[in-house]
C-alpha cells in the first residue's frame, strides 16, 4: 500500500510540474490519468519494493548522494585532465571486482554508481561480482579499495 | 550572451559526435555518437528555450530526452540479438 | 401516317421472328416455317411501302430515340432505301428456302443460331435501308457487322476463326478509323446528319474538306469492298453457302454499296461530288478495283473464292456509278444493285448445290457436270449472263446505263474499263458452264440434283434475272422518278 501512495504522489507531482495550468477541469484530468496509470501499474504488478525502494529513503541516502556528487566531481576532473594531457595519459584496463551487496537494488545502485562516475563503467553484473572497465589503472585501484562498495552496503541495511 | 556561447559549444560537440558517427570504426562507436548527439540536443533545446525567452519549450527538451533514451535501448536490443534472430522472434508470434 | 407504322413494322418483324425461332429450336420444320413466313410478310410490307409510298416519298419519318440534341435514330421512306429494302426482303425468304435444303443436306449443327442471326441481320438491313439520317445508317451498319460475324465463324474451326478475325478487323477497323471521323466530320462541317437530296453541306465548306470526307466515306464503308479494304470478302468464304449468299447478295455488300450511294446522293449531293477534285481519283480507284478483282478471280480455282472476287469487281461497278455522279450513272449503279443481287445469289446457290450434292468445290472438277446437274448449271448460266451484262438478262440494263453515265460525265476511259471487265467476266464465269456442258461427263454419271428446296430457290432467282430484263425499263423509270438532286 505504501508503494501505491508513493507512485501516486510521484505521478501527481509530475503532472503538476509539467502542467502549469491549475484549472479544475485540467486538474481532474490529471487526477484521472494518475488513477488510470495506478490501475495499469497494478495490473502489471510492478509496484513493489524494487520499483519503489522506499526503505532506502532513510537519513543515510542523502549522505551517500553528497559523497557520490563529490566522487562525481573528482572523477570528472580526472577524466578531463587525461583528455587534455598528451598521448599516453590513459591506461585502459578491465577487471572483475567483488561486490558485497546482498539485495538486487543494492547491486544496481553500486553498478550504477560505478558507471555514473566517469572513468569507470560497470559492463557486466553478476550476483557476487561486477566486470568493470576503467580509463586508468589508478581509477580501477581506487574502486578496488572498496570505499563505494562499503557505503552502498550499509545503505542496504 | 553566455547562453549563446553555451549553445555554440553544444553545437560544436554535436558536430564532433557526427564526426565520430562517420569515423567510428565499430557500430557501437556510432551508437555512442548518436546517443551523445541526442543528450546534447536535450541541453541545446533547454538553452535555446531560454535564449528565445520561452521556458515552455522545456517540455520539448524532456520529451526529446525520453525518445532519445528509448531509441538507443531499442537499437541496442536489435544488435544484441542480431538481425535474423529478431525476425524469428517476430516470426513466432507474428 | 401509314408509312411510319409500316417502317416500324419492317424493322420489328424480323426481330419478332427471333424469339419464335428460339422457341421452336428443337422442331426444325416449325423454325424454318417461321423464318419463311416472316420473310414473306416482310416482303409484303415492303411492297406496301412501294405502292403506298408513290407520293409520300420523303415524309413520314419516325424517330425511335434521340441520343443527343439533333442526333436521333429515325426511319424515313427514301426511294433508294425502298429499292434496297425490296431486294433484301425478297431474297430473305428465298435464301431461307435454299438454306433449308443446304443445312439439312449438309448436316450443319446449331442451325438455330444461323436463322436467329440471319433474322437480326435482316432487321438491321431494314433499319439501314430506311434510315432517316447518316447516324441511324451507321448504327444499323454496325449491327449488320456484329450480327453477321457469328454467321461467318459458324463452323467454329480455327480456319473459320481466322477468317472471322480478318472479317471483323477490316469491317470494324475501317468503320472506326474512317467511317466515324467521316460522320463526325460531316456533323462538324454541316451541322446535321439528316439526309437531304442535293447534300447537307453549305457552300462555305471547302472542296478540300469535302474531298477528304468523301475519301474517308469511300474507305470507311468497308462493306463496299473497295480495294485495298476488300480482303474481308474472300476471307468470309469459310462460311457455309447460305451465309455467303447473305453476305454477297442479300445484306452485307449491298449495305455497303447502298451506303456509298446514299452518302453520295443525300450527304454530298450528286452535283457537289461531280465537281470535287478527288472524284476522278475515286473513279479510277473503282475502275482499278473492277479490273484487278476480275483478274484475280480468273486465277481462283476454288469456286466460291472466284465468286467472291467477282463480287468485289461487281461492287466496283456500283461504287464507280456513284462516283461518276451523273443521273444516269447513279441510276445505273442502283439498277446494278438489283441485278447483281439476283445474279450473284443464283451463282452462290449453284455453288452450294454442287458442294452439297457432289462435294466438289474446285472448278477444275466440274468437267461434264452439266449432264449430272442440268438445272443447276442452266440456272448458273442465266445468272452468269446477267452479271456479264448480256441480253436477255437484266444485267445488260445496269451496264448500259453505267456506260451512259460515264459518257455524261466525260470519262471515256471508264467505257474501256467496263467493256474489258465484261470480257473478263465472260472468261471467268462462262468457263464453268463451258466445262460442265462441253467436256465429257464422268462415266456412269446419273442426274443428281441437290435437294428440291435449294433447286427451287435457284430456279426462282435465275428466272428473276430474266424477269428483270423484261421489267428493267419500269425499274429504271421508278429510279429516275425519285428526286435525287
Amino acid at each position, binding site marked *: 500500500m505504501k508503494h501505491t501512495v508513493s507512485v501516486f504522489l510521484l505521478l501527481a507531482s509530475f503532472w503538476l510540474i509539467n502542467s502549469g495550468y491549475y484549472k479544475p477541469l485540467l486538474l481532474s484530468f490529471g487526477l484521472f490519468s494518475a488513477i488510470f496509470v495506478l490501475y495499469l501499474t497494478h495490473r502489471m504488478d510492478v509496484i513493489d519494493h524494487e520499483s519503489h525502494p522506499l526503505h532506502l529513503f532513510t537519513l543515510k541516502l542523502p549522505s551517500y548522494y553528497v559523497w557520490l556528487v563529490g566522487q562525481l566531481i573528482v572523477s570528472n576532473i580526472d577524466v578531463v585532465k587525461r583528455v587534455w594531457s598528451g598521448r599516453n595519459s590513459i591506461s585502459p584496463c578491465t577487471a572483475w571486482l567483488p561486490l558485497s551487496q546482498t539485495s538486487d537494488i543494492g547491486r544496481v545502485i553500486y553498478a550504477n554508481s560505478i558507471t555514473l562516475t566517469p572513468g569507470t563503467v560497470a559492463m557486466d553484473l553478476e550476483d557476487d561480482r561486477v566486470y568493470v572497465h576503467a580509463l586508468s589503472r589508478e581509477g580501477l585501484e581506487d574502486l578496488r579499495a572498496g570505499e563505494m562498495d562499503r557505503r552502498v552496503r550499509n545503505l542496504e541495511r | 550572451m553566455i547562453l549563446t556561447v553555451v549553445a555554440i559549444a553544444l553545437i560544436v560537440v554535436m558536430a564532433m559526435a557526427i564526426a565520430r558517427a562517420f569515423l567510428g570504426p565499430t557500430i557501437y562507436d556510432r551508437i555512442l555518437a548518436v546517443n551523445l548527439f541526442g543528450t546534447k540536443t536535450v541541453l541545446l533545446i533547454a538553452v535555446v528555450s531560454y535564449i*528565445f*525567452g*520561452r521556458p*515552455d*519549450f522545456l517540455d520539448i527538451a524532456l520529451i526529446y530526452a525520453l525518445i532519445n533514451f528509448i531509441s538507443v535501448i531499442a537499437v541496442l536490443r536489435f544488435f544484441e540479438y542480431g538481425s535474423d534472430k529478431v*525476425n524469428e522472434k*517476430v*516470426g513466432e508470434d*507474428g | 401516317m401509314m408509312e411510319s407504322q409500316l417502317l416500324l413494322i419492317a424493322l420489328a418483324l424480323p426481330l419478332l421472328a427471333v424469339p419464335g425461332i428460339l422457341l421452336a429450336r428443337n422442331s426444325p420444320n416449325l423454325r424454318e416455317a417461321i423464318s419463311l413466313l416472316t420473310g414473306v410478310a416482310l416482303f409484303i410490307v415492303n411492297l406496301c411501302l412501294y405502292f403506298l409510298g408513290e407520293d409520300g416519298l420523303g415524309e413520314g419519318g419516325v424517330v425511335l430515340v434521340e441520343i443527343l440534341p439533333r442526333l436521333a435514330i429515325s426511319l424515313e421512306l427514301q426511294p433508294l432505301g425502298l429499292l434496297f429494302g425490296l431486294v433484301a426482303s425478297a431474297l430473305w425468304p428465298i435464301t431461307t428456302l435454299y438454306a433449308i435444303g443446304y443445312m439439312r443436306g449438309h448436316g450443319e449443327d446449331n442451325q438455330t443460331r444461323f436463322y436467329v442471326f440471319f433474322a437480326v441481320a435482316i432487321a438491321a438491313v431494314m433499319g439501314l435501308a430506311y434510315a432517316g439520317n447518316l447516324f441511324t445508317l451507321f448504327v444499323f451498319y454496325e449491327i449488320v457487322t456484329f450480327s453477321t460475324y457469328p454467321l461467318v465463324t459458324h463452323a467454329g474451326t480455327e480456319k473459320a476463326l481466322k477468317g472471322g478475325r480478318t472479317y471483323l478487323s477490316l469491317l470494324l477497323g475501317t468503320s472506326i478509323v474512317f467511317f466515324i471521323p467521316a460522320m463526325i466530320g460531316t456533323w462538324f462541317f454541316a451541322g446535321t446528319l439528316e439526309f437531304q437530296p442535293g447534300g447537307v453541306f453549305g457552300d462555305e465548306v471547302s472542296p478540300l474538306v469535302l474531298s477528304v470526307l468523301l475519301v474517308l466515306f469511300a474507305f470507311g464503308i468497308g462493306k463496299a469492298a473497295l480495294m485495298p479494304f476488300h480482303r474481308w470478302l474472300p476471307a468470309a468464304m469459310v462460311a457455309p453457302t447460305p451465309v455467303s449468299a447473305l453476305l454477297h447478295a442479300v445484306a452485307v455488300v449491298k449495305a455497303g454499296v447502298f451506303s456509298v450511294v446514299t452518302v453520295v446522293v443525300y450527304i454530298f449531293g450528286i452535283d457537289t461530288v461531280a465537281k470535287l477534285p478527288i472524284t476522278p481519283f475515286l473513279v479510277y480507284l473503282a475502275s482499278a478495283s473492277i479490273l484487278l478483282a476480275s483478274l484475280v478471280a480468273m486465277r481462283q480455282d476454288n469456286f466460291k473464292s472466284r465468286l467472291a472476287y467477282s463480287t468485289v469487281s461487281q461492287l466496283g461497278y456500283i461504287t464507280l456509278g456513284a462516283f461518276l455522279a451523273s443521273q444516269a450513272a447513279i441510276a445505273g449503279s442502283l439498277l446494278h444493285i438489283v441485278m447483281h443481287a439476283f445474279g450473284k445469289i443464283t451463282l452462290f446457290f449453284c455453288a452450294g448445290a454442287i458442294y452439297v450434292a457432289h462435294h466438289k468445290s474446285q472448278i477444275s472438277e466440274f468437267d461434264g457436270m452439266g449432264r449430272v446437274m442440268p438445272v443447276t448449271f442452266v440456272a448458273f448460266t442465266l445468272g452468269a449472263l446477267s452479271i456479264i451484262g448480256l441480253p436477255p438478262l437484266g444485267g445488260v440494263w445496269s451496264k448500259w446505263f453505267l456506260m451512259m453515265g460515264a459518257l455524261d460525265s466525260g470519262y471515256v476511259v471508264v467505257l474501256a474499263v467496263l467493256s474489258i471487265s465484261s470480257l473478263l467476266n465472260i472468261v471467268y464465269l462462262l468457263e464453268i458452264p463451258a466445262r460442265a456442258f462441253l467436256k465429257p461427263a464422268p462415266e456412269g454419271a446419273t442426274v443428281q440434283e441437290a435437294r428440291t428446296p435449294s433447286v427451287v430457290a435457284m430456279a426462282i432467282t435465275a428466272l428473276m434475272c430474266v424477269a428483270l430484263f423484261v421489267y428493267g425499263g419500269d425499274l429504271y423509270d421508278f429510279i429516275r422518278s425519285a428526286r435525287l438532286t
Partner: protein
Amino acid sequence: MAEYYNYLVVVLLMVVGLYIVMAQANLVKKLIGLNIFQTSVFIFYISTAKVTGGTAPIVVDGAELYSNPLPQVLILTAIVVGIATMALALALVLRIKRAYGSVEEDVILEQDKPC
C-alpha cells in the same frame, strides 16, 4: 542570400530524399529516403511560416508578435499522415521479408520473374 538558406535546405533534403528512393534497392532504405523527402516539405512550410521577430505561435502573455500558426498546424496533420504511411509501409516490408525472405528489390523481382 542569407535569408534564403532555408529554401536551400528544403531543396537539398528533397533531392537527397528522392535520390535515395530511386537509387536504393533496399526497401527499408527507400522508406528512409521517402521520409527525408517528406521532411523537406514540412521544413518548407514551417520555415515560410516564420515571421521575423515573431515567437512560437503558442499564446503566452507578454508576447505580441507570433509566427503564422496555420502552416505549422497543417504540418502537424501532414506529419501524422506521414507516420501512418510509414507504419503501413513498414508493415508491408515486414510481410514482404516473410514472403520473399529478403527486402532487396532485385532479389524480390528475381523470384517473381515469370518462368
